[in-house]
């Protein structure tokens, strides 16, 4: 299957007695948005962390674009083309919006070991950064210090940084959180387009967005995938409704 870009095979991870990932297998295909949903504490972020390289799985294997990355570091995976956003913003808070995004552009270029030329005057990098800022709608705040952004604006910035990397695979952990109704709507439209550029593994509790976007949905409960399927299948899956959706789906 050549169109599988990310293949998670039988991953397990325990914290003491707690099995946060319990034999999880998932894949992500070219051009799709694969949503990962599940109750709080089900192990979604833990799974994302293992794919991104922040946590090492106890057992199992992860293939990215055809190569085994299970043993690679975060930076090496990012270089291979993995872009991610965090559930809780990870940004350089003293930097301006532009500077934060420039970091992404630097990463895209593949190295920071240039000691002499002023980086903010580097037209190529700047171009790349500015277009990403524009795409998420932060242009107005380009020179604002990140710590002065509102919560929602930070979420947008986080997406912008990931964009500059022009990743081949996106991992997004609750990008909608804190976005506000309008922001969520905008981001939904944006992700809809983005999937053409790179497929997205999307963790999200905002069911409106998930149902609007997802090609496939996997449901994680207590570290196990209990169901995978298209929107209708999941929406009507009894166990999923009981464990996660509640009345909402009705």
């Amino acid at each position, binding site marked *: 299957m050549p169109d599988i870009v990310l293949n998670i095979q039988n991953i397990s991870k325990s914290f003491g007695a707690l099995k946060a990932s319990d034999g999880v297998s998932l894949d992500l295909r070219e051009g799709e948005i694969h949503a990962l949903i599940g*109750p709080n504490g089900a192990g979604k972020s833990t799974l994302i962390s293992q794919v991104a390289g922040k946590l090492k799985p106890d057992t199992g294997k992860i293939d990215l674009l055809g190569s085994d990355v299970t043993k690679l570091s975060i930076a090496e995976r990012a270089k291979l083309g993995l872009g991610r956003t965090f559930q809780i913003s990870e940004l350089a808070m003293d930097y301006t919006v532009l500077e934060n995004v420039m970091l992404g552009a630097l990463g895209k270029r593949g190295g920071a070991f240039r000691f002499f030329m002023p980086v903010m005057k580097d037209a190529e990098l700047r171009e790349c950064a500015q277009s990403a800022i524009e795409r998420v709608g932060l242009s107005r705040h380009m020179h604002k210090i990140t710590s002065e952004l509102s919560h929602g604006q930070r979420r947008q910035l986080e997406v912008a940084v990931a964009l500059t990397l022009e990743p081949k695979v996106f991992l997004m952990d609750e990008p909608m959180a804190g976005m506000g109704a309008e922001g969520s709507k905008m981001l939904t439209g944006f992700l809809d387009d983005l999937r053409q550029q790179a497929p997205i593994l999307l963790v999200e509790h905002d069911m409106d967005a998930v149902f609007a976007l997802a090609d496939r949905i996997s449901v994680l409960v207590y570290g196990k995938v209990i169901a995978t399927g298209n929107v209708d299948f999941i929406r009507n899956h009894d166990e999923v409704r009981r464990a996660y959706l509640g009345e909402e789906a009705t």
Partner: protein
Amino acid sequence: MALLKISDIQASYGASQALFGIDLEVGDGEVVALMGRNGMGKSTTIKVICRLLKNSSGTIDFAGVSIAKLPAHRVARMGIGLCPESRRCFSNLTVYENLVAASRSGEWDFERVIELFPRLGERRNQYANSLSGGEQQMLAISRALMTNPRLLILDEATEGLAPVVRQEIWAAISKLKAETGLSILVVDKTIAELANVADRAVILERGKSVWSGDFTALTPEISEQYLGV
């Protein structure tokens, strides 16, 4: 009589002004939704109420007392319980310790909070920084409840919670309101769910309160204009 009444609040972060005139009232036993697009000043308003940010003008009265000159902890003790944006759990404390550190006597205690969020009971001795995002959110809400407030302030408190849990929280809030007469000021993005509990809404735009009224009066046109949906 209004439990909380703020009028014409202006406030700045250093040199940059964020609030340009906020009026807001929360009555006894009332649930008020504070709404607006990203960056319009909702959280800033809340910071001013909790005295985490000084206002440059305007008045703030809580339970008939002006609190504009009081330090944050005094205001909190008068009965304002805050569940802040982005959680701010004490990451170096366990779940239990987070809750005990905040507790003041009253009907909410550890046992009752655990009833509301059984998940926290299971994670009792885990450090807050290793909790999942949703678990942290539950902890932040519980921590605010542990102070046994008269006015509970929830700033995006259901962010990142599973739909079932969210429903449970809204149900709990309705119940609280009905049973205890707790007043609540809430920021949340899901209008549909707010509709079940909120009595009134106040909408902010660019640091000003531009609309307020009964939640039922919040027509789709108004939402479209101020909230973009």
